[in-house]
C-alpha cells in the first residue's frame, strides 16, 4: 500500500496523486469559496486583508503616540471623539499613552508583521513554490486563519472595556502586568493575554502545516537545495514558531493565573520570580524577532535575484546562514536583560553569543551585494523595496551591535536608540520586505499588475519619510531619552530635544499620508489594473508557470523540477531566465 493511498483514505480524496487538481469540478458556494475556504491562496489573501487592517490600526496608534510626543499636552485634532478616560478634550492621558505604546507594539508584531510575513506569504508561496496542489492539511490551514480573527477581536476589545487596553508594554513585564493595582488596567491586561494565547494557536497550526508541507509535498525533483529561498525562509521560520510559541503560551498561562486566580508565579510578594517571566518572554521573544525578519530575507533574496537577472550569490551559504541565524537565535535572549539584574557572568555569555549572530547576517548582506555585482538591475517597484530592505537592514543590524556590547547597552538600554534599532529592522527590514513581496506577487494573487508609477512614488516618499522619522531617534537615544515616556519634558535634560521630537512627529504624519498612495494603488489595481500574464517578471520559480491567479489545485499537471530556482542568465538557454520545470534542451524526451 502506498503512502498516498493511506492519505487518500484519511482525507477522503487523493491529494498526493499527480494530476490531482482539487475540487474545482464542483461549484462551491460563496461561503466555502471565500469565507471558510481551504484553498491556501484564498487563505493567504484573507490573511493579507486582516493584517493590512491591523497595520493601519497599528499605524494609527503610532500616529497618536507621536502626536503626544511631538506636541505634548496639546489636544489632538479630532481627538474629541475619545472618552474622558482616554483623552479628555483630545489631550492624551498618561495611562492612555501606555496603552497606545503597548497596543502599538503588540499589534504591529503579532497582528501585522507576523501574519503578513507568515500568514500571507507562507500560505501563498509554499505550495506554489514547491509544486504542491495545496497545503498538507487544508482544513487546519483554514482553522489557522479563523483563530487569528477572534484573537484580533479580543485584542482590540481591550480599548472598549473599563480601565482601557493593556498598558504594561508589549513585553508585559511582571509584576506590573499582574495587577490592576499597579497598571490601572483591569480587564484589558487579561484580554491581551487571552488574545495572544489564541493567536499562538493560530501560528502553531500554521507552522505544523508549513513544515509538513515542505517536507512531504514537494514535486518530483524539488530537492532541498532547489527550494526557492522564500520557502526555505518560511520553513525555518515555521520551525522557530513551532518551538518558540509554546514557551510563550506557557508563560502567558501563568501570567493569566497570576492576574486572575491569585497564583504568584511572577509576583515576588508571593515569592514568585519576576525575572522568570522575562526569561520566558525573551526565550520566545528573540526567536520571534527572527521570525519577523527571516521571511522578509527570503522574499528579498528572490526579488533581488530575479530583478538583477542573476543567480543568487552563494545559494547554499544563504540557506546555511538562515539556519544558523535560527539556531543562534535561541541562545541570545539574555541580551534584552543585560540591565535586568541577571547574573553578570551570564550577561557576558549572552554578549558573546549575540555578537556571533552578526556573522550569518553579514554573510547574507554580502551575498546580496554579490548578487547585484555584474547583474542587469531592473528598478521595478519590488526591486526598489528590496534594495531599501538591504540598506535599512544594515543600519538596523549595525545599531544592534551597540546594544550587544553590554556596557554600552547600560547607557542606551530602554532609550530611543532601541526604538530606532527595532524600527530599522522591523520597518526598514520587515515592512520593506513585505512591500517588496506584495508588489512582486500582487499579479499572482490578483491577476492584475500593480500601478508602477504610483508604486515608485509611494516607495520614494516612504523611504524618505521613514528615514526622517526613525533616523533621528538614534540621536535622541544618544542624548539619553528614555522610551515609553509620556512626556519627555518632565526631564529637564530632555527639554532641548523637543524640537527633534516635533520634527519626527511631523515626518510621521507625512509617512502615514504617503501610505494612502499605497492603499489607493492596491485597491485600484485589484479591480482596474492591467491584466497580468502568468510570468510578468520572467521569473524561474514554479508559481510563475501557472496562470495568474492560479486555479484551485494550482498545477494542471504536477511539475517536474530540473534545476535550482535562480538560473538567471544561464548560457544554456537564449532567454535570461530558465524556469525550474523547463526540461533541459537535450533531454531524452
Amino acid at each position, binding site marked *: 500500500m502506498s503512502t498516498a493511498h493511506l492519505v487518500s483514505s484519511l482525507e477522503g480524496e487523493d491529494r498526493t496523486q499527480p494530476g490531482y487538481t482539487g475540487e474545482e469540478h464542483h461549484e462551491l458556494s460563496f461561503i466555502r469559496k471565500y469565507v471558510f475556504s481551504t484553498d491556501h491562496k484564498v487563505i493567504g489573501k484573507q490573511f493579507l486583508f486582516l493584517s493590512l487592517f491591523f497595520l493601519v490600526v497599528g499605524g494609527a496608534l503610532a500616529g497618536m503616540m507621536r502626536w503626544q510626543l511631538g506636541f505634548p499636552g496639546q489636544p489632538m485634532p479630532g481627538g474629541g471623539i475619545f472618552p474622558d478616560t482616554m483623552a479628555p478634550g483630545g489631550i492624551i*492621558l*498618561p*495611562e492612555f499613552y*501606555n496603552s497606545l505604546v503597548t497596543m502599538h507594539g503588540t499589534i504591529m508584531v503579532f497582528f501585522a508583521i507576523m501574519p503578513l510575513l507568515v500568514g500571507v506569504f507562507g500560505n501563498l508561496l509554499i505550495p506554489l513554490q514547491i509544486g504542491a496542489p495545496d497545503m498538507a492539511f487544508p482544513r487546519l490551514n483554514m482553522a489557522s486563519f479563523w483563530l487569528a480573527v477572534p484573537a484580533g477581536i479580543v485584542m482590540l476589545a481591550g480599548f472598549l472595556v473599563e480601565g482601557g487596553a493593556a*498598558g504594561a508594554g508589549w513585553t508585559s*513585564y511582571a*509584576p*506590573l502586568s499582574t495587577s490592576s493595582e*499597579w*497598571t490601572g488596567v483591569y480587564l484589558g491586561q487579561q484580554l491581551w493575554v487571552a488574545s495572544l494565547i489564541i493567536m499562538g494557536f493560530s501560528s502553531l497550526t500554521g507552522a505544523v502545516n508549513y513544515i509538513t508541507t515542505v517536507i512531504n509535498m514537494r514535486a518530483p525533483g524539488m530537492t532541498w537545495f532547489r527550494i526557492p529561498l522564500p520557502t526555505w525562509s518560511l520553513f525555518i521560520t515555521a520551525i522557530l514558531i513551532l518551538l518558540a510559541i509554546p514557551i510563550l503560551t506557557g508563560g502567558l498561562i501563568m501570567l493569566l493565573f497570576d492576574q486572575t486566580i491569585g497564583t504568584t508565579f511572577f509576583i*515576588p510578594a508571593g515569592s514568585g520570580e519576576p525575572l522568570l517571566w522575562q526569561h520566558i518572554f525573551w526565550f520566545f521573544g528573540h526567536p520571534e524577532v527572527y521570525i519577523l525578519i527571516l521571511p522578509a530575507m527570503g522574499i528579498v533574496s528572490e526579488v533581488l535575484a530575479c530583478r*538583477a537577472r*542573476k*543567480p543568487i*550569490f552563494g*545559494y547554499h*551559504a544563504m540557506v546555511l546562514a538562515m539556519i544558523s541565524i535560527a539556531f543562534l537565535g535561541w541562545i541570545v535572549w539574555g541580551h534584552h536583560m543585560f*540591565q535586568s*539584574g541577571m547574573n*553578570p557572568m551570564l550577561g557576558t555569555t549572552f554578549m*558573546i553569543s549575540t*555578537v*556571533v549572530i*552578526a*556573522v550569518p547576517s*553579514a*554573510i547574507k548582506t554580502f551575498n546580496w551585494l*554579490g548578487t*547585484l*555585482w*555584474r*547583474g*542587469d538591475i*531592473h*528598478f521595478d517597484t519590488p526591486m526598489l523595496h528590496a*534594495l531599501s530592505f*538591504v*540598506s535599512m537592514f*544594515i543600519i538596523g543590524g549595525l545599531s544592534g*551591535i*551597540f546594544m*550587544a*556590547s553590554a*556596557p*554600552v547597552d*547600560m*547607557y542606551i*538600554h*530602554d532609550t530611543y536608540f532601541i526604538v530606532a534599532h527595532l524600527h530599522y529592522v522591523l520597518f526598514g527590514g520587515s515592512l520593506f520586505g513585505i512591500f517588496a513581496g506584495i508588489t512582486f506577487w500582487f499579479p499572482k494573487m490578483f491577476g492584475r499588475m500593480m500601478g508602477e508609477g504610483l508604486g515608485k512614488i509611494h516607495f520614494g516618499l516612504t523611504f524618505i519619510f521613514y528615514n526622517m522619522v526613525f533616523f533621528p531617534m*538614534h540621536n535622541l537615544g*544618544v542624548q539619553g531619552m528614555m522610551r*515609553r515616556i509620556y512626556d519627555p519634558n518632565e*526631564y*529637564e535634560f530632555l527639554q532641548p*530635544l523637543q524640537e*527633534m521630537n516635533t520634527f519626527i512627529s511631523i515626518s510621521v504624519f507625512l509617512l502615514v499620508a504617503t501610505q494612502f498612495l499605497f492603499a489607493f494603488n492596491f485597491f485600484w489595481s485589484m479591480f482596474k489594473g492591467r491584466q497580468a500574464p502568468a510570468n510578468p517578471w520572467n521569473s524561474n520559480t514554479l508559481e510563475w508557470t501557472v496562470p495568474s491567479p492560479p486555479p484551485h489545485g494550482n498545477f494542471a499537471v504536477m511539475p517536474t523540477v530540473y534545476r535550482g530556482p535562480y538560473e*538567471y*542568465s544561464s*548560457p544554456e538557454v537564449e532567454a*535570461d531566465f530558465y524556469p525550474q520545470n523547463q526540461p533541459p534542451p537535450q533531454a531524452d524526451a
Partner: protein
Amino acid sequence: MNWSWMLPETVSTYGPAIDQMYYVILVITGVVFFLTEGILIAFLILYRHKEGRKAAYIHGSTKAEVIWTVTPFLIVMWIALASKSSWDLVKNPANFPADAMQLVVTAKQYEWNVTYAGADGRIGTADDFTVRNQLHVPVNRAIRVNLRAEDVIHSFFLPDFRLKQDAIPGKEIPVWFEATRTGEFTLGCAELCGLGHYRMKGTVYVHTEADFQSWAASRAEEQQQ
C-alpha cells in the same frame, strides 16, 4: 536640532571607558556602513539595466564567502571581548570597590527613596535617614547602591554616569559608581512602571566631601527631631 552622535559629558570614573567602547563601535559600524552602502550604490549605478546587457552567470565564490565570514567574526568577537572588562567592572559585585559608601535606594511607584546610614555608618539601624527623589553623594568616593523595589520593576538610570540597573521587588541588587566632579545630575526611571513612569525622577547632587558631610549631618539631625 541636535543630530550629534557624540555622547553627553560623563561624570563617573568608568564612564570614559564605556564611552570609548561606544566610540569604537561607532567607528567600526560607521566604516561598515559607508562601505556596504557605498558598494550597494556603486553596483546600482554600474549594473543598472541597459539594452542588450546580460548579467554574469556566477553562482558565488567560496573564497569571497570565507573572507566575509571570518572578518566580521573576528571584528565582533573583538568587540565582545573588549567590552567584557567594563561590564565586569560595573556589574560584577566581586569587582566592586571594597571601601565604598553604602546606600539603599528603594524604588516605588513613582519615587526614589534613598536611605543613608547615619552617624554609625551602618544601614538598618535607628539613625538611618531617608530622603526622597534626591541622591546626595560626595565626589571622588565610590558609592555602593543597594537597589530595592517595593511594587514593580523600576530602573535606576543615571545618564551622566552611564549607569542603568533595574530594581526588582523581592531582590536587592548592588551597583556602584563614583562621581568625578560636583554638580547636579539626573536620576531617571528607565523601565515602564505604570502611568507615572514618565515623572519618576530625582536629582543627583554631587558634593565635595566637606559639603556632603555637613549635608548629612544636618539631615541626620532633622531625622532625630
